[in-house]
């Protein structure tokens, strides 16, 4: 099939990755990146907002051609859809209330790199000591959830939330002691919480979070995937991704090779 047109879907409610403006238009990191990518791939793109819950089935049913919604590339997802190469990869970290005794836990400010299944990391062991008996909130069914279960499941109580935003509210309410999530997401959430929350412990990066975030595409549409791969490569190479990332996240989320 000759791809001259494509529909891209995103949630439009996951600031700052993507969000809806009060006039109903879409904005944020991803819509702006999408514009660049489509130009380079010579595809006329339409952006439509849709609900996160129905996104992957709707893609496979043919309602859209591309998902661009901070979609982490995971093995499970690879079984149902195809991914482009990643256009972003973000670190993860713990968050807690600024006035909590857990604030400024060991390793705060440092960055550690981890691989899947890695154990015996001394920074993590130090956190285990500090977080014993506490409650950690995570967003259900994410790579971060798996990490927390694997490393803290035996010493802390873990509570799963449907969305990160819900978890943040409970962190503020004091129903839970800690949260663990995408650090870029957190940085933005802290602003909304008027500085009541802060990072604690080290930032964790590396292959443990998989390859990063990529575009989701139907398995059959390999030609479309290839076109976007080329476009992403060029946008990464000339720093476009980095510029947009600095604009929206204040940090660079371009995947490090």
């Amino acid at each position, binding site marked *: 099939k000759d791809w001259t047109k494509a529909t891209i*879907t995103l*949630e*439009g*409610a*996951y*600031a700052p990755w993507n*969000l*809806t*403006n*009060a*006039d*109903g238009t879409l904005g944020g990191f991803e819509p702006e990146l999408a514009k660049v990518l489509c130009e380079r791939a010579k595809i006329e793109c339409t952006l*439509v*907002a*849709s*609900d996160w*819950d*129905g996104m992957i*089935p*709707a893609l496979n*049913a*043919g*309602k859209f051609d591309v998902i661009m919604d901070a979609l982490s590339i995971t093995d499970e997802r690879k079984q149902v859809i195809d991914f482009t190469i990643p256009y972003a990869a973000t670190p993860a970290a713990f968050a807690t209330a600024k006035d909590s005794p857990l604030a400024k836990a060991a390793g705060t400010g440092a960055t550690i790199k981890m691989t899947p299944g890695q154990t015996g990391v001394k920074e993590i062991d130090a956190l285990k000591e500090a977080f014993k008996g506490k409650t950690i909130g995570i967003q259900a069914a994410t790579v971060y959830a798996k990490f927390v279960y694997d490393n803290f499941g035996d010493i802390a109580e873990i509570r799963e939330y449907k969305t990160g*935003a819900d978890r943040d*509210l409970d962190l503020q309410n004091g129903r839970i002691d800690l949260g663990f999530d995408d650090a870029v997401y957190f940085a933005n*959430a802290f*602003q*909304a919480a008027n500085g009541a929350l802060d990072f604690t412990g080290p930032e964790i990066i590396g292959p443990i979070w998989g390859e990063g975030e990529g575009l989701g595409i139907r398995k059959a549409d390999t030609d479309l995937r290839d076109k976007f791969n080329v476009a992403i490569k060029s946008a990464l190479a000339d720093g476009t991704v980095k510029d947009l990332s600095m604009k929206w996240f204040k940090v660079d989320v371009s995947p490090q090779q």
Partner: protein
Amino acid sequence: MASLELLGFGSTGWGALLILAALMTLAVTATALAIGAVLGAIVAGAKLSGNPLLVAFGNVYTTVFRGVPELLIIYLIYFGGSSAVTSIGKAMGYEGFLGLPSFAAGALAVGIISGSYQAEVFRGAYLAIAKGELEAASAIGMHRGMRFRRIIIPQVLRFAIPGLGNVWQLSLKDSALVSVTGLAELMRTSQVAAGSTRQYFLFFIVGGCLYLILTSLSDRIFNGAERRANRSMPASAMGQA
């Protein structure tokens, strides 16, 4: 105040989008209620017919569509319906995607669910009609259809109004689930606004209030209808000391 600005109608205000969304919710619900009324009447008729096959059909319909979570039914109709339409399109030589529009899929799904509730409401109302009054109609030779139109329908409507009010409420809230089809109704717009501005409480409270406004409008209509329908009734049992 920042929150006032967020709710206003200016370029940074969500007012216009929220009002549009409320109207969309109203449209989906009203369409669904109409679809449900037709289905409900048919199913209630089947359940009351006495014909074992029709009764079984009616029972299966009401059990399944009341017993299965609404979200699943909406999924089935939205995705299942789309695949069906697409494959019909393919068979007729059209390449590509042919979806049910979000509105149609949503209203149809909520309507089918609403139909199962309305069927029960209608059946209950029918059973509440005094048997003697039906006999009096038969006795002057009214045939089935006429008995239905002249005696049963007016009384069923009278007894069904409170129940229909409830079904309207249910459908109003089921319509919130239609957001999975991407339709910008009230619930989804509130969530999008909350997620985009991170003002969760503000937009959920405002969304809730807009639902309450829709409810109070419809309550007014249903109460009026009930009063009208009950003017032939003696004071209710609890009315007197």
